[in-house]
């Protein structure tokens, strides 16, 4: 699968052919940094002064790289496809190599960052449990009622919260049995076939 680059994008990246390869390397580093932490316009201005070009040109260059990296990471394109995709930019062989290196080195992390953007439910983080036996209450004395108190830690968008829940031993066994069925299903022929074929 090849990347389709828009003319505007090509024009923005065209600036990279006019500067030194070391500068491109620096831009690449900044692009990855911005993907991690968000962009910082001051850096554009500083770089623009040094290179004696408008700050906008620098911004376009860096943002063009960021877009190139996110798009290729999103589609998880292969090494070969990446090289073919950037070919249309008319960069030197050395520059192409550098971009490929940049892509391969950061792909995993960028995909990680991108996956945080996808909508998700609260997800499991941890479970703490405690075994209690209720012996008496205000309304009823002489009880022997085993209960399992559980603290379920969930995480959603970086925020953790915990719910305290309770269940009885019989239900606990039922829960385990039911969830184990869920786990076993992943090993079934049906699931394995689908997992194998969707790659």
């Amino acid at each position, binding site marked *: 699968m090849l990347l389709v680059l828009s003319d505007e994008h090509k024009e923005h990246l065209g600036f990279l052919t006019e500067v030194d390869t070391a500068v491109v390397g620096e831009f690449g580093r900044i692009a990855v940094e911005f993907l991690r932490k968000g962009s910082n316009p001051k850096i554009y201005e500083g770089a623009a002064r040094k290179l004696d070009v408008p700050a906008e040109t620098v911004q376009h260059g860096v943002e063009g790289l960021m877009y190139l990296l996110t798009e290729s990471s*999103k589609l998880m394109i292969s090494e070969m496809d990446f090289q073919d995709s950037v070919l249309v930019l008319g960069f030197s062989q050395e520059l192409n190599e550098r971009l490929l290196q940049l892509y391969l080195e950061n792909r995993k992390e960028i995909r990680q960052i991108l996956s945080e953007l996808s909508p998700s439910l*609260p997800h499991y983080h941890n479970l703490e*449990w405690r075994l209690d*036996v209720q012996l008496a209450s*205000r309304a009823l*004395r002489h009880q022997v009622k085993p209960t399992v108190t559980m603290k379920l830690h969930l995480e959603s968008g970086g925020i953790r919260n915990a719910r305290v*829940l309770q269940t009885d031993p019989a239900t606990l066994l039922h829960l385990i049995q039911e969830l184990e069925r869920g786990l076993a299903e992943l090993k079934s022929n049906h699931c394995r076939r689908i997992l194998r074929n969707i790659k």
Partner: protein
Amino acid sequence: MELSESVLKGLQALGDPVNFDMNKFTTLSELAFRGLLSSESEAVLDHPDLKQIDPIVLKHCHIALTTFILESVKQNADKSTVSSCLEDVRFDTERADALCTLYQVKYGYLKLIFQLCSLKQNKTDLENLLSSIDKCPPHITDVSWRLEYCMKNAHVHKVNQPSYLISFSVENGDNGRSSEEELNFSCTMEQLQDLVGKMKDAAKSIEKAMQL
């Protein structure tokens, strides 16, 4: 068993043959138990068999009897305790036996209601009577799960990760109201294995504790 003066007096009035003959007594006892156990409360005062009795006395006796039943169950009183307590308030033996038999028959059911009442307070009579009963954290009653295979989303393609959506059915047994809710969360296979592993630890420790 400690009973208030009002309850003792009510029980004495109940044991007085001038107020209640055997039939009326049985009717009232049955009504008292039914009042506790059934959601359709029958009006004691309007009952045809009990019409002749002074409503104030009848009301007093009914309250006393109901309190006595609840207190006996609460204290896990056995037949001899109940009998001796009733003899103390000068019940004649025939009547004490009648009450005891009823008590024994309905005892197990009533006790069960006690344990369940924080969860299943659909019985409006019990709600009012036992509104101060046992509070406990939300109770998990069931679980359902769904297995998904995430292929892509708007930001990342070729994700290709299986994931589970777990949904716990949770029952809230707050005073007087019982409400069901669903607690949904997702987890990966590893996380689900972790969850099940920890639940199994809990189940094992229960099993061990049972053997003690």
